[in-house]
């Protein structure tokens, strides 16, 4: 599994593993923040169980002199917080992995060479400070010390982080992190760990965001004024983010009684003129499907964020998968147009979400943003997003007296009015309707209305976001993927260092980019990579291009791909090719 060795000491992968409730997430946040503010590139991603206490969860934090953005299997440092930890990440332990902690955290039956273990009495130090709860802060300190963060920063960050706590607690946390820092620094100085990560002042000013925040920011940038949703992992973060912004931004965030209410509220708000969205996950989205069809029939914009997780049914609530593409594509009875985005990284999650709002309004359709738990829960630093690259394009008109909501036009798009804005009256109807939105059984008109709605696809197709070709345009082998696999595959290709392999990544999966076939045709060999079991993008590509990508890299155990895994899989395919 461990394709790369830890020789390259300008980059380190730290893994924290413990039970739910042991505060790993706090450590993750503090570390990411401290590291980034110190000028290190950082990427943090986690995998966790669907429970509030106990079990075994892990977080990986990559710290580097260069930009990092993808899950690795490799662990340079492992800090286990409970006995189950080593078993939990067993397969990822290599000859170079160094475990930090008391000997007794390593299970008796576990063979770990002495050189791979550095004894740190976390609990004992914590008790001295004031209790076991400081263990994780000490650990954070150790990590910061081993990579050589400037100590000055840390105190301030801790102060800010715990600002709502008592003086005493803040003091103790500072003491804890300092204690840890000293231990870490001593490891570095003594050469027990050999990291030489350089920091860059530029990084300090960058953003540090996770996928949920990026989608939330994108929504604000897209002019979202109304979000109604029902909590569901892993999509809840977007609702939480917007709820936190309510004090500064004019936005209604309402927790609905169920997903059906959520989508119907969102469509209602949009009808009345407030850009609206819902955030949900597979099972919740399944309940919204009649509502999607409603939006299609009313021609009322709505943005639907689906944070994908493994199904069917409840499945694995806190895990990741890319298996709701087809559900989004074909959701809703009857036939009407839509757009499906699947951002590949945090920056795209921001820009595509804001774009989703403009396109939903422009074409008066439902627009989907498909992310997944991996993207939503991963943090990284990235160049400061530029709000001025975004714009809320207005497509609402002031109505005149004779206004007709569904006026038949050449491109199928009727000027959209909202009630209470202008002289006109604005009706919308879920039955088949005439131009004034009144129920009709005129079957000639019915056909016109179907054509009107479907005709919008022509304009929609003209604005498709093309896929990105990563690598040389002179490829022999082309790997195709979508959504959150972007950075992982990118890094895997860098790792492989083969000029003849490129990566075609789709940020927009529907309508599928017209030139897709040309890209595929050019390759001698096509490979598709998806975090699902049935290759849903592959099917969409086949449907649109007639081309069947038979070589598939699929993963559906609930985890995201790691860089090493992708490297290995590609190598396997290449070696088969050669025999």
């Amino acid at each position, binding site marked *: 599994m461990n394709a790369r060795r830890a020789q390259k000491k300008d980059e380190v992968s730290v893994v924290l593993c413990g039970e739910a409730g042991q505060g790993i997430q706090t450590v993750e946040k503090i570390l990411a923040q401290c590291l*980034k*503010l110190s000028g290190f590139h950082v990427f943090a991603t986690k995998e966790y169980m669907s429970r509030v206490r106990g079990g075994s969860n892990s977080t990986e934090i990559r710290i580097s002199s260069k930009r990092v953005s993808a899950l690795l299997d490799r662990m340079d440092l492992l800090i286990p917080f409970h006995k189950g930890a080593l078993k939990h990440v067993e397969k990822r332990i290599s000859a170079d992995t160094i475990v930090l902690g008391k000997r007794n955290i390593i299970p008796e039956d576990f063979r770990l060479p002495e050189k791979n273990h550095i004894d740190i009495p976390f609990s004992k130090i914590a008790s001295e400070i004031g209790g076991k709860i400081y263990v994780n802060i000490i650990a954070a300190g150790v990590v910061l010390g081993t990579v050589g963060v400037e100590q000055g920063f840390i105190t301030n960050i801790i102060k800010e982080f715990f600002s709502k706590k008592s003086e005493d607690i803040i003091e103790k946390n500072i003491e804890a992190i300092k204690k840890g820092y000293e231990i870490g620094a001593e490891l570095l100085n003594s050469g027990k760990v050999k990291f030489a990560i350089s920091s860059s002042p530029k990084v*300090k*000013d960058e*953003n*540090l*965001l996770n996928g949920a*925040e990026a989608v939330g*920011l994108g929504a*604000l*940038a897209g*002019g979202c*004024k*109304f979000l*109604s949703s029902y909590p569901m992992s892993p999509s809840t973060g977007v609702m939480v983010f917007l709820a936190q*912004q309510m004090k*500064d*931004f*004019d*936005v*209604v965030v*309402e927790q*609905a*009684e*169920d997903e*059906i*209410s*959520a989508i*119907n*509220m*969102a*469509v*209602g*708000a949009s*009808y*009345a*003129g*407030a850009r*609206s969205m819902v955030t949900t996950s597979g099972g919740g989205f399944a309940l919204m499907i*009649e*509502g999607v069809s*409603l939006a299609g029939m*009313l021609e009322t914009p709505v943005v639907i964020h689906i944070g994908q997780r493994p199904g069917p049914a409840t499945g694995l609530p806190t895990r990741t998968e890319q298996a709701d593409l087809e559900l989004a594509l074909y959701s809703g009875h009857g036939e009407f147009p839509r757009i499906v985005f699947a951002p590949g990284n945090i920056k795209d999650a921001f820009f595509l979400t804001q774009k989703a709002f403009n396109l939903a309004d422009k074409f008066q359709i439902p627009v989907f943003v498909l992310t997944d738990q991996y993207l939503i829960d991963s943090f990284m630093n990235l160049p*400061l997003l530029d*709000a*001025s690259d*975004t714009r809320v394009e207005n497509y609402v008109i002031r109505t005149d007296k004779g206004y007709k909501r569904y006026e038949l036009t050449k491109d199928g798009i009727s000027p959209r009015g*909202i*009630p*209470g*804005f202008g*002289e006109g*009256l604005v*009706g*919308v*109807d*879920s*039955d088949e309707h005439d131009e004034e*939105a009144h*129920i009709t059984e005129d079957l000639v008109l019915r056909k016109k209305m179907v054509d009107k709605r479907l005709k919008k696809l022509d304009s929609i197709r003209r604005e498709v976001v093309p896929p990105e070709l990563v690598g040389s345009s002179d490829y022999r082998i082309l790997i195709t993927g979508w959504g959150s696999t972007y950075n992982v595959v990118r890094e895997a290709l860098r790792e492989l260092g083969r000029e003849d392999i490129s990566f075609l990544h789709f940020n927009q999966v529907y309508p599928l980019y017209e030139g897709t076939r040309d890209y595929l045709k050019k390759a001698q060999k096509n490979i598709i990579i998806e975090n699902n079991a049935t290759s849903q993008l592959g099917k969409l590509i086949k449907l649109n291009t007639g081309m069947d990508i038979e070589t598939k890299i699929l993963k559906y155990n609930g985890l995201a791909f790691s860089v090493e895994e992708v490297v290995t899989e590609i190598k396997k395919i290449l070696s088969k090719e050669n025999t």
Partner: protein
Amino acid sequence: MMESQIYEMGDIDIAWCPGCGNFSILKILKLALSELGIKPEKLVLVSGIGQAAKIPHYFKTNFFNGLHGRAIPPATAIKAVNPDLAVIAESGDGDMYGEGGNHLINAIRRNPDITNIVHNNMVYGLTKGQASPTSQIGFKTPVQVKGVFLEPFNPLALAVALDASFVARAFSGDIEQTKDILIEAISHRGFALVDIFQPCVSFNKVNTHKWFKENTYYLNGSHDSSDRGNAFQKAIETEKLPLGIFYKNDKKSTFEENVGVYSKNKEPLALRKEERMKKLSNLIKSKR
């Protein structure tokens, strides 16, 4: 007072059966709204699917004719993003109490300032005569072949139990009284449920105009609509079914008041031109 003509659609084909109670409700609602001086441009009728739910098509105003059972969520949202609009959610008993039951509960909890009018004909009209949640025990239909045996749904008792801010029952056959009840309901600040008994001449041969006349009576002046326990007792009466305003709770704040976006600025959210760029930049910058 405006003329109720203002809501007329002119010469249109109405899909209801001759003699249906829906005609009266349509007429009464127009009367009530014109008496209240609510202009068509400032009104939104929100409905679901069913015979009753066709009402927006016979009404010159803004409307949102949504999905079966889902009138309340869009109505709530419309009011929240534009409180300047008068919003009425109107549908049949199947729509509001069957498919939409969960939304009714939660509309009462949210207390948006909307009026919820339910045409209660104790049957599914549009789908041709199956039992509705309010169908009486023993009511026979092609699906309920041995007659209904489920306890009829009691919307008034439920509303009082959840402390709804306005709870009333009316009868489509009584123009004046029903108009008065609707005027009070629409004027009321907060969620107002008005259940209106409505004869369905095609599919309900039991609960006819005559039956409603004989089995109802009006709450008299001594009924204290601020007393919840009392309202409950009236709501569970079955011997004869009381009509009138059962319960009112004027002390509740509305959903729009609570959502936060109107605490400083009264302009409807939907119409507000917000300058986000700077705030957004600041927010982005804060995420470092």
